[in-house]
């Protein structure tokens, strides 16, 4: 089963890369996260006195995993939109559905096409950001700073991957209802807004001084929303995925 799904995934990824907006989106996703984070901490180190730098890190630290999460999820929305709705827009869906692929093989292929690049970007941009900031702090004469703490690792290793797969489920649901890639892309991009929660919510604790508790709380809330979206999304997607309906819309 996996062999055919991998074949589908590779071809979907190759086809997606042919589109300029996907190519630029991927470059943006790979580069923007680490660049933003490194520049943010670099500029702060240049203007904030070393004595106050700890406070800045406490405030800005929780933003890091959110930024990395958002930029990692964007490729999934673009590739999955092209792999599911784009096939119909290009008229390639019908011959694909005529092959002996089972629904499961087809969905696995589409899921891998959307999820694997995002997961790779998530891991690589996290490593580049952590290493980049650590090196920068040493170069600028600060004690070495590891920008990712335990709550951050928790968010990146749970909520982000779950949301990546949840978005693919949402895309499968949407693919039976829209005919254009950009419509599907716009609809699913809205889901990313969930990752603004761990960016904003801890700020409330600035005055009360309980930022750490609020970071954990907001990360759990984000995980919970992602998990609900994942479970409900896939339950609905698997029930609604219907060749007849997809072909009838062609």
């Amino acid at each position, binding site marked *: 089963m996996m062999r055919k799904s991998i074949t589908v995934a590779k071809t979907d990824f190759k086809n997606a890369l042919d589109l300029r907006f996907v190519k630029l989106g991927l470059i943006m996703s790979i580069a923007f996260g680490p660049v933003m984070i490194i520049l943010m901490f670099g500029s702060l180190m240049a203007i904030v006195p070393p004595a106050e730098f700890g406070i800045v890190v406490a405030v800005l630290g929780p933003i890091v995993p959110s930024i990395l999460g958002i930029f990692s999820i964007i490729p999934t929305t673009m590739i999955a939109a092209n792999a599911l709705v784009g096939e119909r827009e290009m008229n*390639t869906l019908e011959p694909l559905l005529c092959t002996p692929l089972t629904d499961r093989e087809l969905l696995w292929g589409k899921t891998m096409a959307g999820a694997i690049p995002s997961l790779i970007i998530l891991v690589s941009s996290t490593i580049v950001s952590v290493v980049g900031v650590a090196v920068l702090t040493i170069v600028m004469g600060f004690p070495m700073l590891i920008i990712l703490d335990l709550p951050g690792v928790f968010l990146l290793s749970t909520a982000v991957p779950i949301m990546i797969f949840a978005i693919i489920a949402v895309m499968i649901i949407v693919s039976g209802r829209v005919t254009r890639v950009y419509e599907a892309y716009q609809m699913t991009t809205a889901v990313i807004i969930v990752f603004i929660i761990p960016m904003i919510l801890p700020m409330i604790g600035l005055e009360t001084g309980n930022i750490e508790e609020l970071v954990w709380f907001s990360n759990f809330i984000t995980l919970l929303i992602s998990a609900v979206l994942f479970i409900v999304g896939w339950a609905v997607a698997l029930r609604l995925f219907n*060749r007849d309906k997809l072909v009838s819309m062609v």
Partner: protein
Amino acid sequence: MDEITTTGLTKNFGDLVAVDHMDLNIPSGTIFGLLGPNGAGKSTTTRLLSTLLRPTEGTATVSEFDIIKEPVRVREVTGVLPEESNHTLYPSLTAYENLEYFARLYDVPEEEIPSRIEELLTFMVLWDRKDDRAGELSTGNRQRLALCRAILHRPKVLLLDEPTSALDPIAAKRVRELILELSKKYKQTFLINSHNLPEVQRVCDRIAIIDEGKILLQGKTQELRSKLLAKQQFRIRIVGDVDKAGSIAKSMNFVEDIKLEVDSVLVTVEDPTENNSSLMQNLLSQGIKIVEFAEEEATLEDLYLEVVKGGVQ
């Protein structure tokens, strides 16, 4: 053995009945032509048989596999050339990559993929274009590539929807030759949807005429044509006044029907053996110059028009 059988096959789209209780039997190794006007239900029938659509009622078997219960098996033994197939290729993949992708999805043994692709692309005169992106190929070349994709896994049954619609005459002839060759070599069964009646006449052993989702007529192509041959229409090609020749012919009491064309008069007489010589003598005696007097062969087009108009049952 029947390779394709449909029993009361019906497909509704809301209130629209696209295929209406269709009973069809296509023997193994047959090249079967499905004829009908636009919206008659030809493409829906193909989509039902290729398991893309689920019937509202009835069922069908392809190579003895039920389209509802064993759709994956049906798809394994079926090759499909969809409607407007020249638009169904991945434009960013090369001709070779398009075929390679589908070869893997159809479980063609990995070691056979390069040789099969080369064989097919060579046959379709596309080997030199193998590294070109499908989106950069001409319409005709894309259509031929789509046909390669349909036959790549050597399916038992080929469902071809307007296989030569976008091809120039030479490429269309090549496709017809390919269909006949595949049928002869691999005993494949073909279901061809077409508007191109001369093509169907040249290629198909059996035909069915379909309209509003219903089969109006089906049978062997030769037998159906002979129904019309019994009417014995004759073409009298003349030099000069066609209207005058028509009036003379019309005045003779044994002439049953008459049609005028640019340079010919088409007549149907009661008894050709007795009446033709009288008709010819009469025309010549009144100064009509006859270039040709020949039996007009009934075409599938005549049959088609008769059936769709409701003349033949």
